[in-house]
Each structure stands twice: as C-alpha cells, then as structure tokens.
C-alpha cells in the first residue's frame, strides 16, 4: 500500500518544528558567521572570525563557562541530596505527611524573579535581616559583594528555588517503587541504612539519572537569579555564560559574536550532557 497523502498529515508538525527549532538554529549559525553589530547591522559574511575571537581572545567567556559549570553542578548535587532526603522523609509514614509534601513544594510555586528580589533584600549588607541578626555576634558578611560569598549566595537561592522540583520527581519515583523488595530486604537482614544503600538507592537510579539531567539542563540556563541578585558582580565573579551572552548580544548588540558564543555553548552542552548521562548510567545502573 502506498499512501502518498500521509506526508500531508506530517506537514503541520514538520512546519512547527522547522519554524521554532530548525530555522532558529540555522539562522544562529548563519548569524555567527556575520559581523552584525550596532554600527554594521545585517547579514554580511566574515567567515569564522567570530569563532577565532572566541577561542583565542575572550577569556571572559570561558571563565563564565567554568563558573557556570561549577554553579550548576554544585547546585544540582545539593538539590539532589536535599531533595532525596526530604522525599525519603515524607515517603515514610510520618505525622502530617500531606502537610509536609505540600510545604516542600511551595518554593516551586513562587515566581523566581520576585523571590530573588526578596532574597536580595534578605542578604542586603546593611538593611537585610540576615546581617541584622548576625551583627549581634559581631559578624557582617558581604553576601553580595564579596566574590566568593556572592557565588555562595547564588547557590543558596538556586537550591532553595529548585530543590522542590527535585523533591517532586524523587517522591514520585519513591512512591512508584514496588513494596516487596523492602520487605524482603528487612527479612534478609538489611538494617535500615543498608536497605537504603542496597535497595532504595539502586531502585531509584533510573529516576535519579532523569531528575539530575533535567535539573542540569535547567541549571545551566541560570540567568534570572544572577541578573537580579548580583548582576554578575562583583566584577564578573558571578557571571554565567547565558548572562555574558545576553550582555554581548542584547546590551552591546554584537549579534554576530553573541550568536557564535550561543552556538559554541550549545555544542558544548550537548556533548557534556551526553557524557554526564553516560557516566551516571554507568555509575548508578552498573550497565
């Protein structure tokens, strides 16, 4: 049988796909080969000049990239550990289980930008309540203006905002686990701790990998927190890739150069996430 018209039915989906994915990517590649900036707007062709500049003459991009890697890996690990602990806690029969399940999701329901504004006020060096309390002990850390501490503050806010998402995924995973292996493990002589290590954790491995990858993708886009909290400062000490690309592209209007950075960033992300997924699978599933 030969249904020629089946292609007709593929068309709407294909049209959307081309419109929102394929065309933008091709356009970015083309843009990255142009010198489009505010003095010289337009798609001229300058070859791989932008890429040469990026790889030889822009340490700020690479710094922001490694900073981003550090921030996203740290926050995701913290989110995973805390999220797993909370999920495990309300998975067991504890009092007010339902209350806690909802409570732990509250941060996810808030608007990140607004929450970050509140956090900024919170950590304000002279007006914020945190330092107000700490001053009683003779401390006044510079939460937002000390380069190392500012990174720490970004991590706190990110973890607070996104742990609930991890919690939700992991709780759903825990609730879907079969009960029987836990019965068997108890009888087979596994103490609660060993039961967690040898049964709960391995059974959760596939879900954990999924949750970590999803969060890594999300976390590597980190932008709003940095924008509102520190604007990348002090100096460039909390600047992340997306924030730097944003500055180059939409503030300094170096469209061509920003496009080359975006495209490079995309390739690196695809490669590194693939490797991370493979490594996690190998580590957790032992396959």
């Amino acid at each position, binding site marked *: 049988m030969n249904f020629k018209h089946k292609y007709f039915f593929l068309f709407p989906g294909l049209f959307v796909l081309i419109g929102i994915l394929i065309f933008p990517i091709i356009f970015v590649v083309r843009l990255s080969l142009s010198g489009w900036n505010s003095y010289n707007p337009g798609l001229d062709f300058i070859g791989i000049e932008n890429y040469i500049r990026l790889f030889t003459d822009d340490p700020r991009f690479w710094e922001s990239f490694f900073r981003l890697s550090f921030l996203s890996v740290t926050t995701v690990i913290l989110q995973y550990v805390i999220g797993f602990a909370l999920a495990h806690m309300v998975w067991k029969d504890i009092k007010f289980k339902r209350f806690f399940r909802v409570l732990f999701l509250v941060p996810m329901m808030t608007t990140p930008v607004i929450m970050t504004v509140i956090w900024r006020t919170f950590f304000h060096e002279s007006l914020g309540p945190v330092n107000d309390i700490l001053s009683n002990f003779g401390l006044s850390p510079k939460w937002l203006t000390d380069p190392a501490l500012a990174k720490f503050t970004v991590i706190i806010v990110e973890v607070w905002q996104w742990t609930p998402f991890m919690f939700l995924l992991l709780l759903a995973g825990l609730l879907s686990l079969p009960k*029987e292996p836990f*019965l*068997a493990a108890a*009888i*087979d*002589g*596994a103490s609660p701790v060993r*039961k967690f290590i040898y049964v709960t954790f391995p*059974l959760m491995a596939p879900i954990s990998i999924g949750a970590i990858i999803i969060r890594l993708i999300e976390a590597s886009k980190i932008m709003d927190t940095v924008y509102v909290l520190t604007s990348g400062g002090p100096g460039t000490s909390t600047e992340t890739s997306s924030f730097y690309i944003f500055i180059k592209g939409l503030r300094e209007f170096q469209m061509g150069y920003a496009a080359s950075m975006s495209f490079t960033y995309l390739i690196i992300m695809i490669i590194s996430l693939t490797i991370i997924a493979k490594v996690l699978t190998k580590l957790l599933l032992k396959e």
Partner: protein
Amino acid sequence: MNLIANNLTYKPSEEYHLNEVSFNFKEGNLYTILGRTLSGKTTLLKTIAGLLTPDSGAIEFDGKDFLKVPVWQRNVAMVYQQFINYPHLNVFENIAFPLRQRKIDNEEIKNKVMESLKSVGLVGYENRKIQELSGGQQQRVSLARSLVKNAKILLLDEPLVNLDYKLREQLREEFKSLFSKGLADETILIYSTTDPRETMELNGEVIVLDEGKVLQVGPAKEIFENPSSLKVAEISNDPPMNIIEAEISNEQIRFEGIEIKAPNHLSKLTDSGLKIGLRSSDIELSENGHEFEVELAEISGSETLLHLKRGTIKIIISIEEVLNFKIHDKIKIDFKIDRAYAFGANGKLASSPFGENNG
C-alpha cells in the same frame, strides 16, 4: 532452640487477625499452618518474622524476647506467595543479598550461592535478570535466597499458591525432598497453606487456624483421622467433609428417609442434634444405594466431583473416574458408613472411625 508464642493477639480493626495464638515450635521440625484464606496465616508468619507487631502476647526464641529484636537481626527467612525478589539485581546477586548483609568473603558467598542454586535447580541462570524468569523460576530464586542464609527459622507463606498446576506439583515434590534432606537440624520450618493435600503430603506438625484462632494442633495424620471439630473437618478436607444432620437410635442412623445400620463406633451415641461427617471419597456409586439428584457435576483432572441433593441434604462426592452426568439426573449412592464421623451439637468430635473417642 524453641520458638514459643504466648497468646499472640492482633486486631487491627473489627476482626481478629490473631486471637490468642500460642505454640511451642521445636528446632528441626516442620510445622504446617493450615487455614482458609484470611484465617491469619500470613499475619502469624509476618509476626514471627517481625514485619508486624502484635497488640499483645509474647514470642520467645532461644530464651530471648523475640519481639524486642528488630526484623533484620532475627535471622529468619521467608518465601512469600507473591514471588518477591530484587528487580534491580541478577539471579546471583538476589541470592547473595542476605549473605552480603553479613561480613562474609566473596569466595564463600560464591560457593554458598552456587550450592543454593544447585539445590533449586537453577544452575546456569545466575546472570539472568529476574524479569526474564518464569513464575516458577522466580519462586525458586526466592526459595534459594531463603535457604542460602541458613536461617534458624524458615517461613514459607503459601509458596505454591500462585503457580500453575504442573509447577506446583513439581515444586511440592522438590520441597519435600529438600525438607527431608534435613535442611539443618536446628531449623524450624513453618509452612502455611490452604491446601489439605499439601498438608498431608508434607506430613509435619499441623496447626489448624481459623479466624485467627488455633483450632487444633497435632501431627498431620492425627488431624486427618481425628479432626477435633466440624470446623477442622471442613478446613482439613478438600472438598470439605459432608456434614449431615442425623438421628441415631436403636443402632440405626436416620436422615432424610434413609436408614442405615450404625457401625460400632457410632451405635452407642444417643445425643440429639448429632451431625454425621463423611468425606466425599467415602461415598460411592452403587446400584442398590439411595437415590440422589445431581445438582452439578465437575470434572477436575481424573476425578469427577458430584454435587448431590436429596430433600434438604446436600452432599459432594468424588469419584476417581471421569464420568458424564447431566443436571437433574437421578443416581444411586452408598455410604461407607464405617468411615463416618459424628460431631456433637456443639460441633465437637463425638466419635471417629479411627478409634480414639474424643467425645
């Protein structure tokens, strides 16, 4: 090392799951818990394993208060009616799991697991995934896992119930040979089942359980020959024993217009409200017998089960032959009355054909 229970009671809701259950299990023996579904068998095994805490009562093992010992330190093994294994581990690791919880070196674990695999006939399957095995094989894995740790108490909760007929027969044979090889002289083996035939074949000490209460304790033969009450007679026979309300006078048993000469062990009974108990296999087709009407005929295996009716009496007879009957057929049957039991109005055994008069 004895396992002693005293007045175990567990009543999570309106109904008793365990009602003052007491027993004294001795090492090296096989105990069969016989009871219908929901009679409290699983609850009892779970209580022994430590998965449930009874509302009251005590369990003592090796002179120690067993209820104070957490599950993972009790050194019990359990096989469930559902095939419970670890889905994330292969067959080898599944069986090795209990050993890995102790400090045993790898070489020894390997030897023990291979030995255990051999005893359940699964050599060559060690690297398979659990999901790739059939139900029977999965149950063998959990059996191997329970054997490998050399537990002092081995609990088997209706291990054959979810298997198909063929496998059940086969595994039951294997169980018997495993048990008779003397698992370990100090193991207490507790096997729960709903199947009277299984109980008789395993031939251990039987505890008849109903609605959480122990009805009778004794060797399988004793339960079969002298069921202490109507309830026990019902539970320990499949199909259940036929119970007929009858009257005995002048050495004659009378019911529903039938008059049979009472055998010696029944002739002296004079109580009113007597009930006569006859196994389905102790009633046979006979040309000059009593007429009954066929209500239902079912063929199971090489047996025919006939549900018969006469007036208000309904009985089931089994014939070791495949025969075809139609509903409402009239057939003639005879009672092997010398095999009949008599139960008093209170449901207790009044007289048994096997001599011992419990009445």
